């Protein structure tokens, strides 16, 4: 059984492997610097469906199917599926799950949902409640824009601190057997709010949460940042990532050299993403497309995946609320 370490962390005892993963992305993400690592790319944002929401549902479904296939398992081997998306009432995940014969737990942690799913999935396996768990999350630029911001064709400018929601879906299959990068430990984040109200500056809102979770992980396990090949945040963007590094530097941890951010890496600056990518698919596609392949190739041995989520809604923003944020950390290791 897993055991608690320090104040906030959990050490998993069983062998929990990421036996399969898949990443589906949109056209722009495919054209980005990590394009070659993704398993499949959409030609347009509708993917032969008649609404963006349906396209997002299809991404969730197809990513899960691909991940199960990549892991060499059959559909009937999956005992539990969990995950979510950014839409109200998790319609992409829920509607995709109705096409699948798995028990399903819908999770919402905004853009931190991938890490949240991996943590809950690993714990389920560690406790013996399931042997094989599929974790999947999705987000779609066009559905997110219309839910959180403005219509796509509206001719307005975005602020320099804005980020671009990643279109895509990332799925991992966790199993208590087999081979693959191993989930060793995790830290569940606290909801942190430093009073940032600007919904176009999500990096600044989420940086304290990321810093807090990373700090808690490092102190709970008493390890140095450079014991990791990379500490990969989900979607802090350029500005948020810098803030996070500053905050940790103040607490005595130097993350220069190990800190990476999926939001920064998924797009190049020529693609005009402003501060970088965002959305729950940002961390999920980079993890299941890029990082998983690097771990398998043993180019990365040990990473800390820290997905960050801003727990706001358009209603809370209009009511003048600040943005509570959360970050969860998962340590993934590739053994020899």
């Amino acid at each position, binding site marked *: 059984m897993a055991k608690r370490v320090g104040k906030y962390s959990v050490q998993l005892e069983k062998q929990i492997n990421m036996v399969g993963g898949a990443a589906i992305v949109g056209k722009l993400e495919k054209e980005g610097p990590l394009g070659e690592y993704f398993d499949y790319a959409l030609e347009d944002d509708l993917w032969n469906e008649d609404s963006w929401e349906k396209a997002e549902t299809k991404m969730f479904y197809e990513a899960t199917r691909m991940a199960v296939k990549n892991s060499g398992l059959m559909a009937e081997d999956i005992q539990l599926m969990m995950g979510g998306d950014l839409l109200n009432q998790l319609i992409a995940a829920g509607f995709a799950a109705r096409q699948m014969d798995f028990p399903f737990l819908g999770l919402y942690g905004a853009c931190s949902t991938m890490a949240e799913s991996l943590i809950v999935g690993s714990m389920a396996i560690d406790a013996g409640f399931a042997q094989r768990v599929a974790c999947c999350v999705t987000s779609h630029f066009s559905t997110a824009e219309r839910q959180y911001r403005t219509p796509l*064709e*509206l001719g307005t*400018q975005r602020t*320099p601190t804005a980020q671009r929601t990643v279109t895509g879906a990332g799925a991992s299959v966790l199993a208590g057997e087999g081979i693959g990068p191993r989930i060793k430990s995790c830290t569940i984040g606290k909801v942190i709010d*430093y009073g940032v109200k600007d919904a176009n500056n999500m990096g600044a809102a989420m940086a304290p949460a990321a810093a807090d979770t990373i700090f808690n992980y490092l102190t709970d396990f008493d390890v140095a940042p450079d014991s990791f090949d990379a500490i990969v945040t989900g979607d802090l963007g350029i500005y948020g990532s810098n803030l996070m590094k500053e905050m940790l530097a103040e607490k005595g941890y130097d993350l220069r050299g190990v800190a990476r951010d999926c939001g920064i890496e998924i797009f190049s600056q020529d693609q005009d993403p402003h501060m970088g990518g965002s959305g729950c698919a940002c961390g999920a596609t980079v993890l299941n497309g890029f990082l998983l392949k690097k771990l398998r190739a043993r180019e990365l041995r040990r990473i800390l995946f820290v997905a960050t989520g801003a727990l706001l809604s358009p209603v809370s923003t209009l009511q003048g609320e600040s943005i509570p944020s959360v970050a969860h950390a998962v340590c993934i290791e590739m053994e020899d």
Partner: protein
Amino acid sequence: MEPFDARKSRKEIQNRNQEYQEHIKETMPKSKTGIGCIRAFLVGGLICCVGQAISLFALGTLQMDKESASMFTSVVLVFLGATLTGIGVYDDIGKWAGGGSIIPITGFANSIVSPAMEHKREGLILGVGANLFKIAGPVLVNGISASVVYGVILYIIKLL
């Protein structure tokens, strides 16, 4: 709500937040106002010139009176704004020009057509019908309210 956290008082949290927000205000990347104003001036001015040309065409070639000519100009500009939105060009213009393409009447057309395009999947009545004025609605409500207030003030001044 009082923080449910024994380690920090409300005052400490307030100070921490204030410090962080000041730091962000100082360090966050800012919009380039200078170049933004120049772009807005160029595109906004261009749209006004097009409007003036249409107006002159209506007055001269079409022999309209002044009132009909200004109506005609608005209709043509709205048509152009709506068409450019429909073919997916107006948002690119807006991205470059900012306020320059939002403020003129073509921007108004853009703000009506863009939600209409998105919400047609939710049906004509409750989708398009309910969301058509999602962006322009607040502008209209506040604009008309302001003009009513202005009218009342003007009326009172004239009475004096």
